[in-house]
């Protein structure tokens, strides 16, 4: 199969890759670029573990061809921290114990990041709806919702 050139930006860094066009975005992120924070879960757009942000919108990278991200800005969980400091959401997840096994965490963080950008002052109900596409099998939803709520309330400003 003829490989195809793909240019995209991940966490501010430009990449030029040669890939089989059937390669999924999650495969490019994990296997070609080597950022393994983004997880492969159900691979049928059900679980949300592979959630990344493309041009400010949250998507499931298991079901997007990498070639469809051509020329776009992709953000993964590795792109949340800045200058070696955790982002407010990451700090809040830590403080609220918002995970057990941690497998859903990167997806939860990226979904929450995109959600808060869209709706900076959500109600608890809206937060629950916002992360509906992300499944946590350790049933840690309450602590996740509390963590997102704390960031929305401004508890982590200036962190």
């Amino acid at each position: 199969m003829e490989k195809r050139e793909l240019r995209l930006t991940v966490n501010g860094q430009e990449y030029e890759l040669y890939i089989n066009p059937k390669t999924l975005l999650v495969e490019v992120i994990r296997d070609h670029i080597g950022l393994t924070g983004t997880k492969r879960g159900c691979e049928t757009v059900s679980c949300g573990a592979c959630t990344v942000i493309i041009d400010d919108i949250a998507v499931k990278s298991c079901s997007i061809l990498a070639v469809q991200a051509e020329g776009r800005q992709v953000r993964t969980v590795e792109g949340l921290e800045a200058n070696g400091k955790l982002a407010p959401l990451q700090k809040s997840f830590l403080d609220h114990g918002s995970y057990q096994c941690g497998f859903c965490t990167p997806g939860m963080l990226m979904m929450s990041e995109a959600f808060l950008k869209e709706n900076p002052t959500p109600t608890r109900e809206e937060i629950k709806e916002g992360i509906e596409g992300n499944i946590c099998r350790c049933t840690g939803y309450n602590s996740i919702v509390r963590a997102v709520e704390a960031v929305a309330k401004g508890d982590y400003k200036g962190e």
Partner: protein
Amino acid sequence: MIHDFTYLKPVTLQEALSMLADHKDECKVICGGQSLLIVMRQGLVVTDYLIDIKGLNELNYITYDEKQGLRMGATTTHRTVEKSNLLKQKYPVLVAVERKLASAQVRNWGTIAGNLAHGDSSGDLAPTLIALNAKIKLSSAKGSRVMPLEEFYTGLFETALNKDELVVEIQVPPARLLTATAYKKFNLIENDQGVAGVAATVEVDQSRACKDARIVLSNAGVTPIRAKSGEKVLIGKKLSDALLTEAAEAVADEADPVSDIHASEEYRRHLIRVLTKRMVKQAWEQAAKLR
């Protein structure tokens, strides 16, 4: 494992249609791919060429005028429909349906035409749009045709789309006075596919009797099913519990659901009965308020 394919990315609709004409026997069209990539990974769909129309911005639009009604371009995402103030005002049922369709991530990338062309009878948009009397516009390099969405679905995951045709637009007649549409699916997990769903449109006259009705079922057969005998029960009548029960019986008889791991045939008919009563009542009461 996805089989290898040659990736084609047209930049105009014209180019897309000519690629379709060239490769019609050996190609599939991808837009958001939120359904297609799953079945490709499962090996259920194997294709030599994949034509990617996600970038066709000329098909990304929502317009409305009082004469023509609503026009939505094929590459419009679910999220655009969900967030549209125009639709919230003119066709609130579409916004309500979208809010319960899959997840925000899927709605962000997936498109309305992709959803409709996939032809899954458990979809939410098709029955709702059929209840709204929508039409679908199909184009090929040779020309275009418009057909009622109701006639678009021909069998299990089968549609009237010819191999060289592309879904380009969804058309909905102008919003009518004294008319409302409601849709609800039953599911165990919020925003999951419906075990069964019912869309109902009711138009009332000045005396609030039913002037016209459309009832369309989701996941109650191999295609979306329009329950015409149930509609007939309603027309000319005043709203009552007895009438709703009679209509619901007729609709449940007309349904042709399967038994699977999610529900038995009998249980699906029960759900359809209950949802028919609720959705007809909801649409009726809403229509009676709209003056």
